[in-house]
């Protein structure tokens, strides 16, 4: 589009001229330019310059013979030289001045009128008042001037330079006058030409076209787009008709002229349509234009001109579309949508650029052909020098110098062809084509039309390739290859790879060359009839995509990698060869396109295996190369390098390079290692791993020839991906493994179990644990067939019933050991060769429920033991888990450890249970009022009489299943400050060890005398020290179990009833039985008493009575009693009733019992009194 002249590219703007008063010209032209629509101004400083707008003398006449259709300069003339209106500016001084000045004005005006008359240019007068005296222009002069100029009064405009406001108004008036007159002018001109056109008697078609064009341009000046469009279309149609009929010029030049004019007309039409927003119409118009002229190739020697022209049509239209699309986007009108007539891409400029490039390439090839055929190249150059565009659009002429002037001489077609060839040679089509393709490529990429973009890329890369720019070509080819690979467009891929291969060769990139060659050789080209093979002529450097060509490439590349031939690069003498200095190694991963060359699948036949036990592994290789490939050697590599092994082709002589560096590795020899096309090569070997964990096959390295290796990552048969490209082929598909079960499930990795532990861990236990004791669980580790290196013992205590080992209060104070139900205390009995300190270090970590201990090195046969000390605070069963982790070998820390797990359930039991009760003093019953009030409520605290010695009996019972040794039992007073002398507890010496077998009880009696009258008295805590019978006497094993005694109530009884009788009686022997009723109050107490009869006794004395007892005195009832029955008998019971407290009470049964001997007993007194205060009773 840029090569078009400015006047063609932009819409025409009306032109006016101003003459005289040059000081105003700037203001006027600026003002007119900013008008809507703008007006261009031709400023002529004074009247002497007006001749330039005058109609020049024409050589030849209009009706004469025509040399062309359009004059080259006509449009520019009308835009820059021929004004529609002329404004004559006169100074008011001159108009109103002396006659000489007036005369001058008149002369100027006459001259001007004479000039513009020929062109029908309209006239405007302006009077410029320069001085302050503005009113001095007389009306007569004004009218005279108007008359003389033959203008209407409204076209006489007065300017007042001194008044800016009025100046502005004057400018506006001038502008209005100009636009009105310009419109009239262009309309008149258009009409004038149109009448000529309508006369139908035009001598030639050319004239008709020219007139149409002119009318259209005048319409454009008037902004009458519809008219302009119609006239341009008329011109275009008329021109189209001219093609077969015109005989004016020699045929070649005739066609060139017609096409050039058509191009101009088409450009105008397209611009008008696009600016009118009629995109679809514009595209449709372009279709027609394209269809009309596309086949007009012209003479063969200049058909490059046709392609150049066609390319330009596409380019220009693309550019027009692009600019109009940009302006449409700015105005945010609805997005263009494709319709039935116009497809998607035709709305995008990329489409036109691409085709422009296409046609430019066509032009280039035609030009090259023509040039190669014309022998006289030098002749062309010399001949073309003096040729230049002639005055007519699309015509060329020879400029002949004739003295001072040049004369245009028409050319013959031969001359023209030579000129065109010379011109064509000057242009670098390559850059033009690249620029077009690049624009197209980028645009398509933005549309996400990647296939279109790939095609553009392909064309670009081919251009680069053609000019030997292999680096750029390779880069682009590489980037587009993946598109074709992904979608399986094998033939297109073949082309791209062929170019890539050639680029690599020319760049001397051996590895790339080998890769591309192999990929090509393995491509599924023309393996089936469905996709026909491409013809021979048009194919790229790789040759036709045929099976035969694949085989050729295969042979070629294998000769190369085996070092038999070299790679002939174009880079001079460098003949690349695969040697020991330049080995080639290809890597094929899971997404590599080279998977078609070599696909490796490895399957373990099992999923899990013991260490040291061998299992089968099958290696399957598949290749799609057209010929069979002999593999010299296969290295199979695992994540455990010790398992790596090598398979050597038995048919190949072992070369030194191969065996080098293979020392110590397993080498197998396979009878045959040949990869046939699309046939799995399956080899199965045994494999065993000593190391537990995952054993995974990583890669297989195939060695083909001394310096060529392919490292191929292996895949599991179960997860084998489709083979790229070949997946669309109708080929025999087989499984890498014959066994269908394995084919679906086998993996390339196997789990190697850890070796069986050869170490025994024993947890000894001595029955249930007892609450409170440090319960020792012996752990014995005996290394049987393994040595133990870096052993570690983990201990875990878990509540059997679930839940924590801690009581809920643990949250509050986790540090307190009391809140723990069960606690791992420590480890004892570590057997260490050195000091105990190192033993402590070995206890790495002990927590309440978790422990971690290091186990020293143990030789085979050694054993080691320790005790876990666990203490129960509550009875609870727990699970003890012990696990030993060790490595059987000293050397490597990294190897996986062997683990032995043991567990044991241990129940924690309460060792001793306590109970206690109080006994009041013997045969002495206080009236405890609280007891009476409470009635039957037995829950309340026991009451003890003040200052009386009561008896506390504490009973413990062995509830464990083992005999216990009791060491001592005592009562610990509470720490209350005021309780120091609140109670006196008489305690005996620590008791000697007494054995308590399971289920047996033990009682201890304490005499308790409360000394403070208080409703709640803390009695203290019973502490029992004990240990398991048979344990050592060390204090470690002693356990103190505590039992808190309940609080008691102390009160002073108002009345005390004491029974006084002998300790025992003899049948028939009378004895005296006193009942003493003590009043301990300061009040007189009225007492009623009632004595019940007893069948076992005969008694004398009053049975019931009412007595008064004085304060602090005692009333004694005395009875003479004779026992009638032997054994433990109940004395006649007395019931005392206090009137004051209305409470009666009886002495307890215990205190009113007496033993009656049948006859006088005889005791043998031995050591009976040794233990005065302890009674062992069942």
């Amino acid at each position, binding site marked *: 589009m840029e090569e078009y002249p400015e006047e063609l590219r932009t819409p025409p703007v009306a032109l006016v001229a101003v003459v005289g008063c040059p000081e105003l010209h700037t203001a006027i032209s600026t003002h007119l330019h900013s008008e809507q629509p703008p007006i261009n101004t031709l400023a002529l400083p004074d009247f002497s310059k007006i001749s330039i707008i005058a109609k020049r003398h024409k050589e030849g006449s209009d009706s004469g013979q025509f040399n062309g259709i359009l004059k080259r300069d006509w449009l520019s003339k009308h835009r820059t030289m021929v004004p529609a209106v002329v404004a004559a500016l006169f100074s008011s001084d001159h108009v109103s001045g002396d006659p000489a000045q007036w005369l001058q004005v008149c002369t100027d005006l006459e001259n001007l009128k004479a000039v513009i008359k020929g062109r029908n240019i309209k006239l405007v007068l302006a009077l410029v008042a320069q001085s302050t005296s503005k009113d001095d222009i007389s009306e007569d002069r004004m009218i005279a001037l108007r008359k003389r100029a033959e203008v209407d009064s409204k076209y006489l405009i007065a300017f007042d330079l001194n008044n800016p406001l009025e100046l502005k108004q004057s400018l506006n008036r001038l502008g209005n006058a100009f636009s009105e007159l310009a419109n009239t002018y262009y309309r008149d001109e258009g009409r004038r030409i149109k009448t000529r056109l309508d006369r139908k008697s035009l001598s030639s078609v050319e004239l008709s076209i020219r007139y149409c064009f002119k009318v259209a341009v005048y319409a454009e000046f008037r902004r009458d787009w519809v008219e302009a469009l119609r006239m341009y279309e008329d011109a275009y149609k008329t021109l189209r008709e001219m093609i077969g009929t015109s005989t004016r010029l020699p045929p070649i030049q005739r066609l060139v002229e017609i096409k050039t004019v058509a191009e101009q007309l088409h450009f105008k039409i397209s611009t008008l349509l696009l600016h009118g927003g009629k995109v679809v119409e514009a595209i449709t118009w372009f*279709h027609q234009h394209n*269809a009309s002229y596309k086949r007009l190739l012209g003479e063969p020697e200049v058909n490059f001109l046709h392609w150049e022209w066609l390319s330009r049509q596409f380019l220009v239209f693309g550019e027009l579309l692009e600019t109009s699309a940009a302006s449409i986007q700015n105005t945010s009108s609805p997005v263009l*949508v*494709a*319709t*039935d007539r116009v*497809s*998607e*891409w*035709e709305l995008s400029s990329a*489409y036109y650029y691409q*085709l422009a490039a*296409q046609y430019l390439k066509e032009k280039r090839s035609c030009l090259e052909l023509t040039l190669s055929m014309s022998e006289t190249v030098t002749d062309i150059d010399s001949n073309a020098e003096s040729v230049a565009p002639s005055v007519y659009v699309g015509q060329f002429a020879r400029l002949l110098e004739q003295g001072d002037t040049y004369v245009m001489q028409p050319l013959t077609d031969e001359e023209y062809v030579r000129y065109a060839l010379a011109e064509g040679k000057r242009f670098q089509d390559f850059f033009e084509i690249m620029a077009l393709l690049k624009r197209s490529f980028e645009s*398509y990429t933005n*549309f996400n*039309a*990647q*296939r*279109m973009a*790939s*095609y553009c890329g*392909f064309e670009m890369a081919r251009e680069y390739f053609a000019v030997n720019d292999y680096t750029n070509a390779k880069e682009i080819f590489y980037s587009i290859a993946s598109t*074709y690979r992904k*979608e*399986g*467009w*094998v*033939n*297109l891929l073949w*082309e791209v790879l062929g170019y890539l291969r050639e680029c690599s060769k020319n760049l001397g990139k051996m590895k790339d060359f080998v890769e591309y060659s192999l990929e090509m050789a393995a491509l599924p080209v023309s393996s*089936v*009839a*469905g*996709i*026909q093979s*491409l*013809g*021979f*002529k*048009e*194919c790229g450097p790789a040759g036709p995509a045929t099976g035969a060509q694949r085989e050729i490439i295969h042979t070629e590349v294998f000769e190369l990698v085996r070092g038999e031939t070299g790679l002939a690069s174009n880079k001079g003498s460098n003949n690349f060869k695969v040697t020991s200095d330049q080995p080639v190694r290809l890597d094929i991963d899971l997404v590599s396109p080279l998977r078609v060359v070599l696909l490796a699948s490895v399957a373990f036949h099992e999923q899990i295996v013991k260490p040291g036990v061998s299992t089968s592994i099958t290696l399957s290789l598949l290749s799609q190369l057209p010929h069979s490939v002999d593999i010299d050697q296969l290295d199979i590599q695992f994540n455990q390098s010790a398992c790596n092994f090598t398979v050597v082709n038995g048919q190949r002589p072992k070369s030194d390079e191969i065996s080098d560096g293979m020392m110590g590795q397993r080498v197998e020899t396979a009878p045959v290692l040949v990869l046939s096309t699309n046939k799995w090569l399956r080899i199965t070997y045994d494999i065993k791993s000593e190391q537990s964990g995952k054993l995974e096959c990583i890669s297989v390295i195939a060695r083909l020839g001394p310096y060529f290796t392919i490292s191929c990552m292996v895949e599991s048969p179960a997860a084998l991906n489709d083979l790229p490209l070949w*997946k*669309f*082929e*109708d080929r025999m598909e087989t499984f890498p493994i014959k066994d269908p079960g394995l084919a679906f499930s086998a993996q390339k990795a196997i789990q190697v179990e850890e070796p069986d532990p050869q170490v025994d861990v024993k947890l000894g236990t001595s029955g249930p644990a007892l609450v409170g004791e440090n319960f020792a669980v012996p752990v014995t580790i005996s290394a049987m067939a393994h040595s133990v290196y870096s052993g570690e013992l983990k201990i875990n205590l878990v509540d059997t019933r679930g839940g924590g080992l801690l009581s809920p209060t643990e949250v509050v104070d986790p540090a307190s050991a009391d809140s723990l139900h069960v606690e791992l205390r420590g480890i004892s009995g570590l057997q260490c060769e050195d000091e105990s300190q190192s033993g402590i270090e070995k206890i790495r970590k002990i927590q309440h429920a978790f422990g971690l201990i290091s186990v020293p090195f143990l030789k085979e046969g050694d054993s080691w033991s320790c005790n876990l000390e666990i203490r129960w605070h509550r009875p609870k069963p727990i699970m003890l888990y012990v696990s030993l982790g060790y490595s059987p070998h000293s050397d490597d820390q990294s190897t996986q450890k062997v683990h032995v797990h043991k567990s044991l359930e241990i129940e924690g039991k309460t060792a001793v249970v306590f109970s206690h009760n109080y006994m009041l003093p013997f045969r002495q019953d206080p009236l405890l009022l609280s007891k009476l009030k409470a009635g039957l409520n037995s829950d309340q605290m026991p009451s003890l009489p003040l200052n009386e010695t009561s008896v506390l009996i504490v009973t413990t019972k062995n509830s464990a299943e083992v005999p216990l040794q009791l060491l001592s039992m005592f009562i610990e007073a509470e720490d209350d400050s005021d309780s120091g002398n609140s109670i006196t507890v008489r305690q005996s010496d620590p008791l000697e060890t007494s054995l308590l077998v399971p289920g047996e009880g033990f009682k201890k009696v304490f005499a308790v005398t409360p000394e403070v009258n208080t409703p709640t008295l803390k009695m203290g805590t019973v502490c029992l020290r004990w240990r398991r019978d048979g344990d050592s006497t060390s204090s470690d094993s002693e356990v103190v179990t505590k039992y808190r005694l309940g609080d008691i109530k102390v009160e002073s009884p108002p009345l005390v009833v004491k029974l006084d009788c002998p300790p025992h009686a003899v049948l028939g022997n009378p004895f005296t039985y006193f009942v003493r009723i003590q009043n301990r109050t300061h009040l007189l107490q009225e007492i009623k008493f009632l004595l019940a009869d007893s069948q076992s006794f005969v008694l004398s004395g009053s049975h019931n009575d009412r007595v008064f007892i004085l304060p602090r005195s005692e009333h004694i009832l005395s009875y003479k009693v004779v026992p009638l029955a032997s054994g433990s008998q109940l004395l006649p019971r007395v019931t005392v009733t206090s009137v004051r407290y209305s409470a009666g009470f009886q002495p307890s049964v215990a205190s009113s019992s007496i033993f009656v001997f049948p006859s006088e007993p005889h005791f043998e007194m031995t050591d009976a009194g040794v233990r005065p205060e302890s009674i062992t009773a069942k």
Partner: protein
Amino acid sequence: MIVCVAVVGHQNNPLYIQSFTEADDALKLHHIVHCSLDVVDERVNNPKRSGPTLNETFLGLLYPTENYKVYGYLTNTKVKFILVTTDLDVRDADVRNFFRRFHSAYVDAVSNPFHVPGKKITSRTFAERVSGIVKSFGLSSAG
């Protein structure tokens, strides 16, 4: 004249592509067919036509290029048929008719027990039938 017909699978892979031209532009036709898939994608993703033609199997003119016009057809099973012709004036009805016959040939081809779904069509019967359909293109406008 029809210069090329193609069947393209749902992964945009060529299943069958045959050109009927003496000129050596088979590679170019491959490119044209491949590029036309962009238009098919575009047209399926942004259906432009409204009304009864929505989701019609016949996609119409995909794009004109150089000397060719490319027509497309997309079956319910996401298989594309591409037709490349050099005729400048092509009647829509002819193309529709062509595709209808082509589709039925395709269905018969994939019903062939030796055909594996998703793979290239190698049946010779299909090739012959396609040639027949191509030869009769535009001849029987009524049909």
